[in-house]
């Protein structure tokens, strides 16, 4: 995982959540490797992926925690929500139950992240139109009612995958620009200008090395 030169000005932490088998890891893989991973086994606990993107001329490093969807991991994966700037909440458009469970995922996301965390709803597997079990319109309405960004995407074809990850970053960046996201607040999920080259670690118990602390 060679991250190359550390020439980015921000680090955003993301989490990917949703039921088992909706394609969370495949979305991550498509985004970081630009490849579709067929026959992907169930994720064990959490996986991590990273990619540097550009928003408004700023290089941003995304640190993405992909969580296992299986119920037995739920308690452990919850600890990764903390300090996420973006949450990608995924369901499978061909399996209605995964859509019905969204309110439970949303409750977790709201309770365990900060109020400014950008939540993006992704209806995955939109290449499987013939097996569709959730209409675009109802999901869009759910997203609107809950203030979520929304797209249907396909980890298989890559459709809208870039858009979902990038739109989330744009929204976070916008929140920084207009001041609604306070970078000095604990758990904003955003780090500005990493001061050390080992900037890839975003551990839960960050030491008090907050430069520019206004005290």
């Amino acid at each position, binding site marked *: *995982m060679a991250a190359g030169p550390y020439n980015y000005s921000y680090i955003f932490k993301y989490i990917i959540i949703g039921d088992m088998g909706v394609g969370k890891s495949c979305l991550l893989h498509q985004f970081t490797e630009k490849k579709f991973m067929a026959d992907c086994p169930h994720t064990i*606990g959490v*996986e991590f992926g990273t990619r540097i993107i550009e928003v408004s001329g700023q290089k941003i490093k995304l*640190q993405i925690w992909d969580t296992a969807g299986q119920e*037995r991991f739920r*308690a*452990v994966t919850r600890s990764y929500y903390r300090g996420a700037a973006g949450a990608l909440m995924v369901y499978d458009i061909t399996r209605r139950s995964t859509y019905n469970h969204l309110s439970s995922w949303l409750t977790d996301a709201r309770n365990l992240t900060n109020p400014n965390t950008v939540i993006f709803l992704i209806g995955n597997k939109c290449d499987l139109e013939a097996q569709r079990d959730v209409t675009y319109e109802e999901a869009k309405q759910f997203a609107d009612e809950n203030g979520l960004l929304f797209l249907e995407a396909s980890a298989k074809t890559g459709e809208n995958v870039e858009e979902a990850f990038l739109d989330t970053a744009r929204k976070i960046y916008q929140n920084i620009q207009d001041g609604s996201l306070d970078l000095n607040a604990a758990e904003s999920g955003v780090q500005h200008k990493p001061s050390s080259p080992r900037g890839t670690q975003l*551990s839960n*118990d960050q030491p008090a090395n907050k430069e520019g602390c206004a005290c």
Partner: protein
Amino acid sequence: MEEVINDIVDPEDLKKFEKKYNKELVAGHITTNTQFEYAWALTRSKYGNDIKKGVGLLEELFQQGDEQTQRDYLYYLSIANFRLKDYEKALKYCRAILHVEPRNHQAMEMEKLIKEKMAKEGLLGMAIVGGVAAVALGGIAALGFAVSKGKS
């Protein structure tokens, strides 16, 4: 992968899972989930003794698990042993997963990382011999082998 290994548990989380575990311990019945959650938190501790305790709990869980959950326990046993710098054991557990799921990319990434680490420390020769022995056994037997030999 390194990020997953280097990730440290929030002390509050560790306390929470420990409390839940101890409560069930006192009540005389520990559920698999509680034990797993506590073990998982322990293996992400920054203290070696916590990690070792987590390994013990995972080994117990392994003995009672089905094939799917055994895979999970092996993965965390591999990570925990890596964190304890016992790379040979880490590799053995990791290969046991790959024996059952050859295309498991989490295990593949883990194996690569362990090998890099071992190559750096000049330990790779020994481990390859151990790996061949594990592969000679079939399927889940290889998993059992990995853990039963894990204590030697």
